[in-house]
């Protein structure tokens, strides 16, 4: 019974994570410029990765695999904002102007 509950929670986490990953992809396609597209990728970086790793942790139980998944999560949390900041800063220095104001077109 407990195993079943765990399986259901895992399924929900993985499904939600996949949906957020797809949302990130759709966002990259729909959003108009470089900086706004970076916001779409940060959806994939944060919640999508967290949900998928959490779902996998529930399946692996108390083992070394869980610890390793935890390390992956920790390093993603530390490295993805750093990478995003480096990308954005480089874009500014490269002279890419951010699109400002209300823009509803693709």
């Amino acid at each position, binding site marked *: 019974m407990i195993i079943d509950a765990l399986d259901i929670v895992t399924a929900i986490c993985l499904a939600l994570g996949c949906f*957020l990953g797809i*949302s990130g992809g*759709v*966002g990259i396609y*729909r*959003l108009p*410029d470089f*900086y*706004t597209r*970076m*916001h*779409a990728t*940060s*959806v994939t*970086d*944060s*919640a999508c990765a967290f949900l998928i790793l959490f779902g996998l942790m529930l399946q692996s139980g108390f083992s*070394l695999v869980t*610890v*390793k998944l935890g*390390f992956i999560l920790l390093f993603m*949390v*530390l490295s*993805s*904002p*750093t990478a*995003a*900041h480096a990308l*954005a*800063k480089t*874009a*500014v220095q490269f002279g890419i102007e*951010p*699109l*400002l*104001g*209300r*823009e*509803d077109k*693709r």
Partner: protein
Amino acid sequence: MKYTFYLTIILAAFWLLLSGHYTPFILACGAVSVALTVFLSLRMRVVDEESQPVYLGGNVIGYWLWLIKEITLANIDVCKRIWSPRLDISPTVVCLKASQKTPFGVMVYANSITITPGTICIDVDGNNLEVHALTWSAAEDLLGGEMDKRISALEI
């Protein structure tokens, strides 16, 4: 010296957890690689208080829980805007003043901004942050300064 000791302990624990094989030969390999890493870090002069934020005090767990809540709300908001047919966005660039006293505090603030979907810190100059936001409301939330205050409260 203190930081060299901390680094060795952390690396050894990390190696033991990642390896999962505990035969004498493998353990010796681990010890050698930990020693080599510590030696190289000492040679590169990167072993100092900045690499080990042990001075971060206060309610870190509480801040993490609050940040997870904020990230969840921001995710829902950004997803809604991505999927809405009208693509209701208003990209904004704002300048913020970070009130933290140490460079480490400013780093935590900038990274917290960037990891929240909808806001990206694009430039850090001392205590001045330049932030790109997907929507005006996300920028307004940051200008409200709640995240800034919470991170300042973490510093000793």
